[in-house]
C-alpha cells in the first residue's frame, strides 16, 4: 500500500510539475495532490503526539505568509481606493492575468528570479548579503550574449559550455569583494553594490559594441540577436500544448533549486557553509576554514546569478537590451527573504513575484491602474512576513488595552 502511494506521489508530482511548468495551470493541482499524499504518508508513520506537533509547526509556518499576503492585498486595495482606482476590478484583473490568462508570463518572470533568489539565499546561509546580485546577473548575461552571438556547435553541447562559462565569469566577479571581506572585513553590502553599479555601467558599452552602435544599427539599444542554434528549446518540443515562449530554463530553475537544497543540507560543503554562517567563531574553533566556506558560497552565488542571466538571454530574449533594467538581481533579494532562504521556498516566492508582476501588467493594461501598485504590495508582503514580531506587538497592544479596560471597569 505504502509503495503504491509513493509511486502515485512521484508520478503525480513529476507530471504536475512538468505540466505546470509548461504553463498548464492545472498542473499545480497534481503537485498539491502529491504533497498531500506525502503528508498523509508521513503522518501515518508518526505517533499522535509528534503528528500534532508537526501539524502545528506546519500551520504556524503557513500562518505568517498567508496572513502577510492577505493583509498586503487588503492594504494595497486601500491604497488603490484612496488614490481613486477600483480595487475590486484591479484585483480581478491582476489575479486573472497572473494566474490564468498570462500564467506563462508569470512562469517566465519567475524563472530568473529562482536563480537569483537561490544565489542570495546561499550567500545568506554563509552569513553574507549578496546585495549586488544584479551585477553578477549582468556579467552572466553579457558573457552569454557575447558567446552566443559569435559561435555555435551542434548537439547543444555549446549551450552547456555557454552556461558554464557565463556562470564561472559571474562567479569570478564575486572574487574580489569576497576576498576583501575575508582579508580586511570590508562589508560586502558596500563592495558588491559598487561592483553591481560597475557592471551595469559596463553593460551599456557592451551593448554598443555588440550591435547596438547608434551610428550603424537601427536598434541602438539592443545587441545583435544570438545564433538560432544557441536558443534554448521551447518546452513544447517535449510537452505539447505548452506556450511557445516557455523554454527549458523553467525546468532548469526547478532542478537547480533542488540541487541547491541538496548541496546545503546533505553535503559537507553545505554543512560548512551553514556552520560558518550560523556561528563563524564556533566553526573556526572546530577547524573549519571559514574563509574557504565563505568564498565557496559566494562563488556559488555568483554562478547562480550568471546562469540566471544566461537563461534569460538564451531562453527568452535572444539578445541583450541596454538599460532594460529588469531588476532580477534586486528582486532576488526579496524572493530570498520571503522564502526565509530556503531553496524550495525560493521556488514559491519567485512564483508569487512572477504572478504579481504578470498580473500587474495585465491589470495596468485592462484597468489603467498603475502597475507600480504591485511594487507597493510586494513591499508590504515582505514587511509583514519578515516582521513576525509585529504580530506579538499587535497582540501585546491589544492585550494591554483590554487589561487596562478591565482594570478601569474594576475601579
Amino acid at each position, binding site marked *: 500500500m505504502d509503495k503504491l502511494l509513493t509511486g502515485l506521489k512521484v508520478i503525480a508530482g513529476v507530471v504536475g510539475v512538468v505540466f505546470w511548468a509548461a504553463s498548464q495551470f492545472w498542473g499545480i493541482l497534481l503537485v498539491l495532490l502529491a504533497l498531500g499524499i506525502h503528508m498523509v504518508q508521513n503522518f501515518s508513520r508518526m505517533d499522535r503526539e509528534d503528528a500534532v506537533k508537526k501539524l502545528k509547526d506546519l500551520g504556524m509556518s503557513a500562518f505568517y505568509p498567508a496572513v502577510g499576503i492577505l493583509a498586503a492585498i487588503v492594504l494595497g486595495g486601500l491604497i488603490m481606493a484612496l488614490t481613486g482606482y477600483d480595487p475590486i476590478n484591479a484585483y480581478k484583473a491582476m489575479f486573472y492575468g497572473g494566474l490564468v490568462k498570462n500564467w506563462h508570463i508569470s512562469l517566465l518572470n519567475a524563472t530568473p528570479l529562482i536563480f537569483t533568489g537561490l544565489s542570495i539565499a546561499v550567500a545568506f546561509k554563509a552569513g553574507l548579503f549578496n546585495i549586488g546580485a544584479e551585477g553578477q546577473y549582468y556579467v552572466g548575461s553579457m558573457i552569454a550574449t557575447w558567446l552566443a552571438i559569435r559561435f555555435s556547435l551542434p548537439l547543444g553541447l555549446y549551450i552547456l559550455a555557454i552556461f558554464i562559462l557565463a556562470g564561472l565569469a559571474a562567479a569570478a566577479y564575486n572574487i574580489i569583494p569576497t576576498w*576583501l571581506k575575508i582579508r580586511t572585513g*570590508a562589508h560586502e*553590502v*558596500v563592495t558588491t553594490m559598487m561592483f553591481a553599479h560597475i557592471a551595469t555601467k*559596463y553593460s551599456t*558599452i557592451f551593448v554598443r559594441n555588440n550591435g547596438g552602435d547608434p551610428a550603424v544599427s537601427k536598434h541602438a539599444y539592443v545587441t545583435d540577436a544570438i545564433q538560432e542554434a544557441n536558443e534554448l528549446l521551447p518546452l513544447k518540443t517535449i510537452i505539447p500544448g505548452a506556450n511557445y515562449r516557455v523554454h527549458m530554463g523553467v525546468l532548469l530553475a526547478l532542478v537547480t533549486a533542488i540541487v541547491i537544497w541538496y548541496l546545503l543540507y546533505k553535503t559537507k560543503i553545505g554543512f560548512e557553509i551553514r556552520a560558518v554562517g550560523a556561528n563563524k567563531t564556533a566553526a573556526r574553533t572546530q577547524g573549519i576554514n571559514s574563509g574557504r566556506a565563505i568564498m565557496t558560497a559566494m562563488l556559488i552565488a555568483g554562478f547562480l546569478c550568471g546562469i540566471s542571466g544566461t537563461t534569460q538571454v538564451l531562453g527568452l530574449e535572444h539578445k541583450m537590451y541596454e538599460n532594460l533594467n529588469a531588476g532580477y538581481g534586486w528582486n532576488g533579494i526579496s524572493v530570498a527573504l520571503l522564502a526565509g532562504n530556503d531553496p524550495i521556498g525560493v521556488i514559491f516566492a519567485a512564483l508569487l513575484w512572477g504572478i504579481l508582476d504578470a498580473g500587474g501588467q495585465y491589470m495596468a493594461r485592462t484597468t489603467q491602474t498603475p502597475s*507600480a501598485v*504591485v511594487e507597493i504590495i510586494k*513591499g508590504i508582503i515582505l514587511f509583514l512576513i519578515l*516582521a513576525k514580531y509585529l504580530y506579538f506587538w499587535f497582540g501585546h497592544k491589544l492585550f494591554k488595552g483590554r487589561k487596562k479596560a478591565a482594570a478601569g471597569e474594576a475601579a
Partner: protein
Amino acid sequence: MEFVIELLSATMRLATPIALAAMGAAVCERSGIVNIAMEGLMLIGAFFAAAVALATGSPWLGLLGGVIFGGLFSLLHAWSTVTLHINHTVSGAIINILAAGLTRFFMVEFYGHPGSSDMVQKTLGDLNCAVPLLSKIPLLGPVLFDQSPTVYFMYFFVLFTSFLLNRTKLGLHIRAAGEHPMALETLGISVKKIRYIGVLYSGLLCGFAGSFLAIEYGRFFTEGMTGGRGFIALAANVSGGWTAVGSFVAAIFFGFIDALQLKLQVMGIFKIPPEFFHMLPYAATVIAVAGLVRRSRPPADSGNDFSIEKEM
C-alpha cells in the same frame, strides 16, 4: 589655476550629498542601527523635493518637503528595526525596494508616466551666492565660499553633527546606545527612543541629500537617480571611522573622484567611452572601504537587536 579651482569647487559640490548622508549615517550607526536604507531615503527625499518644488515653484519649500519626507520614511526603518526587531540590513534592503516602487508609483500618479519628472523652474543651484570677504581668499575662497546654499548647509551639518556627538547629552546617549545599550537602559534611559532619534536624524539628512540631487545638482527627479550614493555615504562613514569629521573628509575624497571623472570626460584626453569614467567613483569606494576599514573600530553594538528581556 582656473582648472584647479573649478575641480575643487566641483569637488565640494559633489561631496555635499555624500557628506550630508554620511553625517546621518554617523549618528545612526553610533546609536546602534545599521542603515543601508539610506539609498531609498535619498530617493524619497529627491522625489518629494522635486514634487514640492514643481508644485510651489519654490526650491526652499522643495528642500523642506524632501527633508520632511525623508525623515518620515526613515521612521519605517526605525519601527521595523527597533520595535519589530527585524534584522537591520534586511529592513534596509526592503525599504530600498519599497522606495523604488513608491517613487515609481508616485511618478505615474503625479505625472502620468514613469521615468523623469518635469523640470523645476528654479533650483537651489540658481541661488548660488558668494560669502562676502571669505570668498576673496585666494584658492580656498572660491572653492569653499562661492557655492550654493546647500553646500553651506552641509558645512553647518558637519560641525553640528560633530558637536552633537561629542559635546551634548543626547550625543553621549547616542554613543552609549551603540556601544552598550544595556548600560544606558539600566540608567533609565530608553535605548529605543535614542535609536529612533538616530534613525530619524539620518532620514532627515538623507532627505536633504536627495533634495540636493533633484533640485540643485539636477533640475528634475529621475527614477533611480541616487545611483548608489546612499551606499557611498555609508562607505564614507565607515572609512571616516564613524566620526563626523572623518566622514566629511571621506566624502570630500569621493566628491573629488566624481569631480575628476567629470572633468576628464569633458577634457576628452582619453578616447574611451564615458561609462568608464562613471565607474570611477564606485571603484574608489571599494578601494576606500577595503583600505580603511581595518583602521577603525565600529560601534560595538551596531547592527544588533536590542530587547531588555534578551539581555538579562
